[in-house]
């Protein structure tokens, strides 16, 4: 056989049907974070579970055996598949009873970085999660010499059930960043007594806390299951391009990720390629993934540092030329405080997010070239980036949460994301559905349009339509909204180049739009991915009616 014949035979291989068989057991495991040990739940005897590596075009068969004494489930987060394989008990299937094995079978139609986790109770915060890597059929639109999964989580010493109960008993149970008498005196010195009093009275009048950014503090940040002291380490040779597959598998925690001394080039968001954008730091919402390429050139250790958005904890790992090398661990930056803008009060009904996006949508409709809009975004936003940080349109104007890079450099914004290749042809949405994100901090109740899932009617969509979802965040928390089964096309005003995601983070006091091509019949979950918000009721069932397999109604 000539070498060219061999090559062409090899080239044919991906086109042939490719089938892999995988096994997962769901087990009780011991989790050791370095700070504490606890009983938890894992896969194949460990938490996090194994990295599942699939290939685009492959037909996978996954046998999941439940070794727990309670029901379980596995949801393949971000994967496009038949709804019966989506792993949400009560929607996709009844779940997996103790001692039973459920066999998932579905085709892999995409590539990128994803993850899997239990969709039962609080098994995911208790440890039931793992990573998924899907190799593309063709070559990637970028190059790297080696790759690492960097899977973040916020491991808490309490069980998920206990956390939920504590929050229901006392919503500020875990908040150890509340304003104290000491803060009052400090603010009085810095801002004067009148201003400080006014501030405290304003928050007191609302019975809300400016420090309410992270509901659940007291966790240890983990990278690939390792605490800061255990120091997960990835090796490199100086000059190599290293691809980091960042996955935030936290129950509740957003992380601000950086590698001091290195720039990160973001090439994927939520598994989909984006036009590369080079930043110094990025914020990864709960359940999001970002793939970044870094190129460490020096023969030294670089710290992977992930501070929680509320600065109550961090995860830390290291990229190093050799095992055992340590990079410097930065100090945690001061905790931010929410402002009246985050309460939606600074410019009532005029928040930047809804304004700009709404306007763009209108212009789209009237046929004005939206590429120019995108261009204007860039043009007006980024002149002299370091000196004058542009307001991030995905935060309320004047928000206390607007991120700033550690070195005053560039911090990734949703507004920077552009699809590398449009996934769908652009078209006008058939209708708009408004979803107000609502809740009561003090009672720890969370809902959509003021109604908890248990009292709500499902959202019914018609197969073949393109729906525009309007998220209006009326709470003071940031909500990572996750729609199962179909892509969430985030409106950044870039028309066909809008990035395609599976989690859309909605900051307090903002309005954010996404569009969805309704191309998957069946019953799907649509929820805030903060575990305790979803459990409290910030959740909707979506039923897609019609379609090739006859939608289930």
């Amino acid at each position, binding site marked *: 056989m000539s070498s060219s014949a061999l090559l062409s035979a090899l080239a044919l291989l991906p086109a042939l049907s490719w089938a892999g068989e995988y096994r997962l057991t769901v087990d009780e495991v011991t989790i050791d974070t370095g700070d504490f040990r606890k009983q938890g739940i894992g896969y194949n005897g460990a938490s996090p579970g194994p990295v599942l590596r699939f290939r685009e075009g492959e037909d996978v068969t996954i046998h999941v055996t439940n070794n727990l004494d309670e029901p379980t489930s596995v949801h393949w987060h971000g994967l496009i598949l038949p709804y019966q394989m989506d792993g949400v008990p009560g929607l996709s299937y009844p779940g997996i009873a103790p001692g039973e094995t459920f066999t998932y079978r579905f085709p892999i139609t995409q590539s990128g970085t994803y993850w899997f986790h239990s969709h039962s109770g609080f098994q995911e915060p208790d440890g039931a999660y793992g990573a998924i890597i899907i190799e593309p059929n063709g070559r990637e639109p970028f190059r790297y010499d080696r790759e690492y999964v960097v899977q973040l989580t916020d491991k808490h010493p309490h069980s998920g059930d206990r956390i939920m109960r504590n929050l229901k*008993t006392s919503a500020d149970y875990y908040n150890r960043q509340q304003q104290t008498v*000491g803060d009052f005196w400090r603010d009085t010195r810095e801002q004067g007594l009148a201003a400080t009093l006014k501030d405290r009275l304003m928050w007191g009048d609302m019975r809300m806390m400016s420090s309410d950014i992270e509901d659940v503090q*007291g966790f240890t940040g983990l990278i690939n299951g390792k605490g800061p002291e255990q120091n997960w380490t990835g090796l490199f040779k100086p000059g190599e391009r290293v691809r980091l597959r960042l996955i935030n598998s936290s129950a509740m925690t957003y992380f601000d990720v950086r590698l001091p001394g290195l720039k990160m080039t973001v090439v994927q968001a939520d598994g989909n390629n984006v036009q590369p954008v080079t930043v110094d730091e990025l914020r990864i919402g709960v359940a999001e993934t970002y793939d970044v390429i870094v190129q460490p050139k020096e023969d030294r250790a670089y710290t992977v540092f992930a501070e929680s958005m509320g600065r109550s904890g961090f995860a830390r790992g290291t990229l190093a030329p050799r095992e055992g090398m340590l990079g410097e661990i930065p100090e945690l930056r001061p905790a931010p405080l929410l402002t009246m803008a985050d309460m939606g009060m600074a410019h009532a009904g005029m928040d930047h997010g809804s304004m700009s996006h709404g306007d763009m949508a209108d212009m789209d409709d009237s046929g004005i070239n939206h590429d120019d809009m995108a261009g204007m975004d860039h043009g007006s936003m980024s002149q002299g980036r370091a000196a004058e940080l542009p307001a991030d349109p995905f935060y309320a104007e004047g928000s206390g949460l607007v991120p700033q890079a550690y070195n005053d450099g560039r911090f990734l914004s949703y507004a920077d994301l552009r699809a590398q290749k449009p996934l769908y042809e652009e078209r006008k949405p058939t209708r708009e559905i408004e979803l107000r994100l609502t809740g009561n901090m003090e*009672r720890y*109740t969370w809902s959509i349009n003021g109604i908890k899932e*248990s009292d709500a009617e499902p959202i019914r969509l018609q197969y073949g339509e393109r729906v525009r979802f309007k998220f209006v965040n009326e709470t003071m928390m940031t909500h990572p909204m996750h729609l199962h089964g179909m892509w969430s096309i985030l409106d950044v005003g870039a028309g066909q180049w809008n990035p395609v995601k599976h989690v859309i983070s909605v900051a307090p006091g903002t309005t954010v739009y996404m569009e969805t091509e309704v191309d998957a019949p069946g019953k799907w*979950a649509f929820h805030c991915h903060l575990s305790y918000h979803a*459990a409290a009721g910030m*959740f909707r*069932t979506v039923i897609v009616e019609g379609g090739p397999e006859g939608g289930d109604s």
Partner: protein
Amino acid sequence: MKRLMTALLLSASASAGAEEMRHSMHHGFFYGLQADALEYRYGDSGEELGYWSTEAWWGTDELKALWLSEAEYDFDHDSWETLDNRLALQTPVSDFLDLRGGLRFDTPDGENRHYVFVGLSGLLPYWLEMDSNLYLSEHGDLSLDLALEYELLLTNRLHLTPELEFDAALSDDEAVGVGRGLRGMEAGLRLSYDLLDRAVVPYLGVHYERAFGRSADFAVQDGEDRDGWFAIAGVRLMF
């Protein structure tokens, strides 16, 4: 009361039907066990008392069943000065306030009383915790109380908590020492430290009680003091 009962039954039956809707992540029912105070009191005239105030609850966001218990035990006389148990249902009436209603069983050593009560509790602006109730005794006597509490954060773990409580009656009930009008007040100041999360919180403090008007006269007749200061040491528990 009857309405609350009906609501509880309805919600229980709804939960059965909701089983299929209860996909995976949704949790409806919760419970809590708390001891707001579990303390030792040493009085200004040398008396020693044990005191507790506890709460157990179970239910949903919309409706909770509660068991509230408050007791004062006099070690010198081996007697229950106060033994007050309440069974109640509670439902939210606004973002920050709950309506409560139920039965109160007053069974100290001596004369017992049963009441029905209805009350409002929750968070007032500026972080004032409020609990106020109206009681109707088996003899038709009406009384009411109002308690306010504020938690001052010296640090995120060290708290100073002043409390103030007023009791009033609309008629005399001499058998249990209740005189018409404002009959008493209690004030407390506790310095607490969150030792283990918020689950185990030891504290030190002072407590002051004073009887007014005819209630004070009844107390004096019984050989008790009109008022008293106590040094207190105790622990707050939450499970």
